[in-house]
């Protein structure tokens, strides 16, 4: 359906302000969502929501990076760029999920973790690093879905999981194409070229062994049919949770470790 689009075409689609965000999907996917606020250390980050909900009668913990549709909304959610307290709230709620044996569902949609003075003072690097380590050994299933933009370390802070899916137009990248272009050619306007070089599309991410599934979007992108998109995501989540919940925790953790451990390509001396 969305085959044949270039990485650049897809970037334009996901930058569309009308594209649904996690805030639009959550009420359609879950029976009821109780938002839980704050990291208990510093504050509450509106760029990263957390809460508990039910899907098919199964209680789950939901973590989501949330973009706005208007400038007003985006100011409040900081364009989905979390501060350290966002990642620490996520970790608090993941530990809570572990305690109550609830699967964790992460919706990734961020240009990246926020870059600013407060973020540095409060340890943006440390907050993400801590999540990577703790998610790796969290004793409950974790499923991540990249809804739109998977921006670097800020995305990975919710991306250590047992199974990952990409919406068919979503991208996941180590660096923004714009950033890459400005380093490579000292010319940020060549982001289009960089986008094609970085292998950031859903098909690339699956081919490279980082995601397991692609959730198909309607022609013209998720924004063309919110209901259909939400139901496609729901269907994927049901299947993934059902499958992962059957695995013994030991096996689940071993699979998770092995998945990330095996990523990377290199040659070795004889």
């Amino acid at each position, binding site marked *: 359906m969305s085959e044949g689009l270039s990485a650049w075409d897809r970037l334009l689609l996901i930058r569309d302000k009308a594209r649904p965000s996690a805030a639009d999907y959550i009420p359609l996917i879950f029976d009821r969502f109780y938002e839980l606020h704050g990291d208990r250390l510093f504050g509450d980050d509106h760029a990263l929501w957390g809460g508990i909900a039910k899907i098919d009668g199964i209680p789950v913990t939901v973590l989501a990076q949330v973009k706005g549709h208007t400038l007003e909304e985006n100011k409040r959610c900081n364009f989905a*760029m979390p501060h350290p307290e966002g990642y620490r709230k996520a970790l608090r709620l993941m530990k809570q999920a572990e305690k109550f044996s609830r699967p964790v569902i992460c919706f990734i949609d961020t240009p990246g*973790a926020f870059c600013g003075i407060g973020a540095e003072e409060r340890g943006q690097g440390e907050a*993400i690093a801590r999540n990577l380590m703790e998610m790796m050994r969290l004793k409950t299933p974790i499923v991540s879905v990249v809804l739109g933009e998977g921006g670097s370390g800020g995305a990975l802070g919710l991306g250590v999981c047992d199974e990952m899916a990409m919406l068919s137009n979503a991208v996941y990248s180590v660096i923004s194409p714009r950033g890459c272009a400005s380093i490579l050619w000292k010319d940020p306007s060549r982001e289009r070229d960089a986008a094609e070089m970085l292998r950031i599309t859903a098909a690339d991410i699956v081919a490279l062994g980082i995601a397991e599934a692609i959730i198909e979007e309607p022609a013209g992108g998720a924004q063309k049919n919110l209901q259909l998109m939400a139901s496609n995501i729901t269907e994927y989540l049901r299947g993934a949770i059902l499958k992962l919940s059957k695995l013994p925790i030991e096996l689940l953790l071993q699979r998770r470790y092995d998945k990330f451990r095996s990523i990377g390509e290199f040659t070795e001396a004889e």
Partner: protein
Amino acid sequence: MIQELFEQVKSRVAPPRSATPQRRLDVPDNLLYRCPRCGGVVLMEDFEKNGRVCAECGYHARLAAPERIRMTVDPGSMQELDAGMKSCNPIGFEGYTRKLEQLQKATGLDDAIITGECTIKGQRCVIGVMDSRFMMASMGSVVGEKIARAFEYAVRRRLPVVLFTASGGARMQEGILSLMQMAKTSAAVALHNDAGLLYITVLTDPTTGGITASFASLGDIIIAEPKVLVGFAGRRVIEGTIREKLPEDFQTAEFLQEHGFVDMIVPRHDLRRTLGHLIKLHARPETDTAGITGEGEEHV
């Protein structure tokens, strides 16, 4: 957003701040060292004798990995692990293969890290040293794999790990695979941590981007050399966001310690002794004697 880090790191260090006119001395350049922080000029010989620390301002200049190892480990004790592991340009990034070959030739390194087993003041440990000469010690598949293997090796032999970090972040030339090395290395740290073993990080100039958002921030004890640059986002990126100049000490070791992210700042000439003491302090009776034998031999 591990953006513009290479640029940022370069710009932070390359141009000397010295507004003072530089006196042209009739001495060949390689006999002099000009400090990028204070602009002071000293004889290269004195600078080297001082462990590549500026006598004027205390700036701890970057070290090549082999030099750091020579300064840190007991003579003759270093046994390198995974030598010869090289990048294969996994996403076919234009110009990357050539760049790798040039750097391998220029530095004698395979990639941006050397790992191995050694003793420091008689204490056995696994050591890893990143080298900023190699693509600003950015982390791609090779760096990630060598770090993961170093931790796994240490788990099998019940050894502590000491990592000297320096990096511009994840290596964009390997795309998403580089980003995933952050998860991979953090997984290996978790494994080592679960085994109850000691992990010490030594943050050196510059430790930035994806490295601070993974293994560099996960040490049981985090040491930094004085005045080094440590941070997640590039200075220029932040200045672009907030549209004002950042304070001079922003993202220095001292700044990080003040905000609670560094345990101790240790000058270079004290590092070897400090590491030796800390490792000894954590030694348990069963790890004092030679390591566990007979457990599956190393991957080749």
